[in-house]
């Protein structure tokens, strides 16, 4: 039943998004614009340093992630659909997992476009399997935390403004780990050299997912 609910919500979000393409296109355009901005701000040149690359990429993902998270729950609330979900006799954790997964899919979809564009523009090879794994792990924890916090920010008077304020300081350990792991890998270090960062990432993902699951009931009810 849990998995069926998760799947139903994920399916619903993906079909809706496929029909109107609002969230994804906003995230994508935003991400590309940010990368262009960084180009001028940091004088990125071809073959830019790995450290800079991973910083630019993760700051971009972090910002465009908040766009998606904000959208995902507040769109439900605006049309009153959130009440529809809450009326159903389903585990609130299942609603959370469904929403977090759809957020993760949107972030990954953005990454699928942004990463090749970045490698093309700056002539850096980003197609390192271990790096892609880091992207997945980082986005997983980030979406887990962001989905939970967006449940709080959407009920606030400040709405969308509040989410980054809530999310960034709390997600900092995850972002540090993910940036360090990425820059190590992009510098050409082998997986074993950044192994400790990967372990840390897994630990953070587990902590953030668990905590969010435990508190989501309190966030979404009433």
């Amino acid at each position, binding site marked *: 039943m849990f998995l069926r609910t998760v799947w139903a919500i994920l399916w619903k979000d993906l079909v809706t998004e496929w029909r109107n393409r609002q969230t994804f296109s906003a995230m994508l355009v935003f991400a590309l614009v940010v990368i262009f901005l960084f180009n001028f701000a940091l004088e990125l040149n071809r073959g830019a340093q790995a450290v800079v690359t991973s910083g630019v990429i993760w700051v971009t993902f972090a910002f465009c992630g908040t766009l998606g998270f904000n959208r995902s729950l507040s769109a439900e609330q605006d049309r009153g659909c959130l009440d529809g979900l809450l009326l159903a006799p389903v585990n609130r954790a299942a609603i959370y997992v469904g929403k977090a997964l759809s957020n993760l899919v949107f972030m990954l979809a953005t990454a699928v476009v942004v990463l090749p564009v970045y490698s093309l523009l700056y002539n850096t090879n980003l197609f390192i399997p271990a790096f892609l794994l880091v992207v997945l792990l980082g986005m997983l924890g980030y979406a887990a935390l962001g989905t939970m916090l967006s449940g709080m920010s959407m*009920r*606030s008077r400040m709405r969308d403004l509040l989410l980054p304020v809530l999310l960034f*300081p709390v997600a900092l350990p995850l972002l*540090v780990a993910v940036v360090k792991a990425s820059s190590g890998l992009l510098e050409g270090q082998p997986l074993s050299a950044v192994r400790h960062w990967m372990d840390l990432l897994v630990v953070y993902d587990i902590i953030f997912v668990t905590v969010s699951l435990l508190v989501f009931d309190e*966030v979404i009810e009433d």
Partner: protein
Amino acid sequence: MRSGHPRLLLSLSIAASLLLCLALWAVFRYAPLELNMGAVQKVFYFHVSANWAGMLGFLVALVVSVIYLRTADLKWDIAAVAGIELGMVFTAMGIVSGMIWARPTWNTWWTWDPRLTTIAVVEMVYAAYFMLRQGIEECERRARFGAVYSIVGFISVPLTFFSIRFARTIHPVVIGSGDSSNQVFNMTPAMLQTFLLCLFAFSVLFVVLLWHRLRLGLLAQEVEDAANACWE
């Protein structure tokens, strides 16, 4: 209790002021001058004590937030706010005194050392806590969200410290030497006694302020309830 301060609170307040005076005296008169750093080292006593009291505040907030989520009794939410407010004030004192200490010893106001960075993030997390509360009108939801965020924040802070620590030890690029706040100077017995006295004085001060703040919060709640009852 309604009319005026409870006696214990009053005596504790007086005790805290006396203890603080005693601590000041100990810092300037009793503790000897440190050889390398000189007079500026005296900041150390209050600096560590303030940070200690700040951490106490956040810890109190964490505990009462968990209790709030279990009981949904608004008085625990008032306690959480009290803890976090005090935590932020004491931590700010810790940061400022730390900067005063850092300037002559490390020759800079600020370094991106794990402790400094973490403490800055702590202030940001709890500033976000107040922004979150500000935007929510219904008091139960505000209390619930506040409790959730203070728990999440408290869990994330040690992780931040760990992450940065990890990053810095692998690439030792900190200005100055490695983990400079760990720089140990040899404490003479008199210094140690002074240090412990300061810790104690700040702890008592913390308890007194927490109690006052709690009392204030509960009274404010009462006033609001009465006003609502009147208005209806």
